[in-house]
């Protein structure tokens, strides 16, 4: 069962992503206004969802659980670290896919738009988190400081989320649902858009598991290397 669950998750992720791509590229029609460019929108919002909410949210919650004395364990710190790394990659993908869509639509790769700018700032926050981890060698100090930093960085998230409402922006606001609950996207286009959220969320959990296992292997490898080094030193001392 232990081996079956990750395999099922991996297979489900792969099939879901393939379905999203197939529907997005070959089955759904062109958009009346955007033409083929709309196909990028089947993945861009889902990537942003994973970057800003799923993986960053996981990192913040795991950091909070680490700092909370009753649930403190290095597992939480590892989960936070791995989730934040994935979030950095997904933020980069969000900005890249957004830029590719923005160039033909807005005429520029980058606009000084509130949503774009706050998302980029969020990316720098996350890079800062990883830099902070590298600057501290002591595992407990590293876990505490990066945990505090993740929680402080979370204060920036409402700014990213509500930026399209608070400021006049080029970036569109809510599209699938409007305030009175009416759907604005219909048919297969809606299904593909919504299903991409499921597919990319599954991808996040699959990546998180893989990265977590890698981190465990790295830690045990590092401690084994240290033990070997110490044994060599002891042997050198014995020879003298």
């Amino acid at each position, binding site marked *: 069962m232990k081996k079956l669950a990750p395999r099922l998750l991996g297979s489900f992720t792969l099939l879901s992503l393939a379905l999203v791509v197939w529907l997005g590229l070959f089955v759904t029609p062109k958009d009346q206004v955007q033409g083929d460019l709309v196909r990028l929108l089947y993945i861009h919002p889902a990537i942003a969802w994973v970057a800003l909410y799923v993986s960053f949210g996981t990192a913040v919650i795991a950091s909070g659980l680490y*700092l909370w004395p009753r649930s403190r364990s290095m597992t939480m710190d590892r989960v936070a670290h791995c989730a934040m790394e994935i979030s950095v990659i997904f933020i980069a993908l969000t900005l890249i896919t957004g830029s590719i869509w923005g160039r033909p639509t807005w005429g520029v790769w980058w606009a000084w738009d509130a949503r774009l*700018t*706050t998302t980029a*700032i*969020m990316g*720098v*926050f996350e*890079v*800062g988190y990883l*830099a*902070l981890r590298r*600057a*501290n*060698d*002591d595992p*407990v*100090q590293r876990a*505490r*400081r990066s*945990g*505090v*930093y993740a*929680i*402080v*960085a979370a*204060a*920036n998230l409402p*700014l990213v989320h509500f930026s399209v409402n608070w400021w006049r922006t080029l970036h569109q606001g809510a599209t699938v649902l409007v305030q009175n609950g009416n759907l604005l996207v219909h048919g297969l286009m809606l299904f593909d858009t919504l299903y991409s959220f499921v597919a990319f969320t599954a991808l996040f959990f699959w990546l998180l598991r893989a990265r977590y296992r890698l981190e465990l292997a790295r830690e045990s490898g590092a401690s084994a290397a240290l033990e070997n080094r110490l044994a060599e030193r002891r042997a050198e001392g014995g020879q003298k």
Partner: protein
Amino acid sequence: MRTAWLVAQKDLRIEMRSRVLLWQVVPFGAMALLLCGLALGPTRAGHSSVAPGLFYVVMLLVALLMINRSRAIEERPGTKASVATLGLDPAGVFIGKALALVIELLMTGAVLLAGTVVALHVSAHAALVASPSVAVVLGALAVAGTLYGALTGGGTGTATLLPVLSLPAFAPLLIAGERAFSAAVTGQSTWQWWLISLVALVVYTALGILLYGVVEES
């Protein structure tokens, strides 16, 4: 609050004796403001609309220097041990350090605000109208900076790590401050930007009071 006052007094006394603020930080800020003016050229630099942005960029650079310095005081040999032995409340230490930093930033800010009047042609009235919002933004910078300073202390590459960690947090404050200052220059309402700065000040103060002890404990 007694702890806060003691810590603030200690930091300010060190600053008064060393005169680093007077002879190093303020001249650096003035020079940076002049360099920004030179980079823009006489026509654009003489236009008061660029002054708010330049003022806040220079204030951010100055704040980074002062946060590093405030942190360095705590890193001196024996200081941490003394604080631990005295059993001072971490929340009080945080408020005290932030208070000292606010006072130092306000003093530098006053000089640089006068600099914008002289060099960047902002009217004295606009500078006066902008000064309360400047005070709130600098307060938020000091509070956030104290927390980030604590996070970077003791590790490797502290001086370079601080800007990476703190500048993303300072960016919304820079925007809010610049907008409030610009509104003061053009005679528009500034309350929305005040509100953002005030919320940031309250949020960072609350986070600092809650989390400073956790950071220092490590």
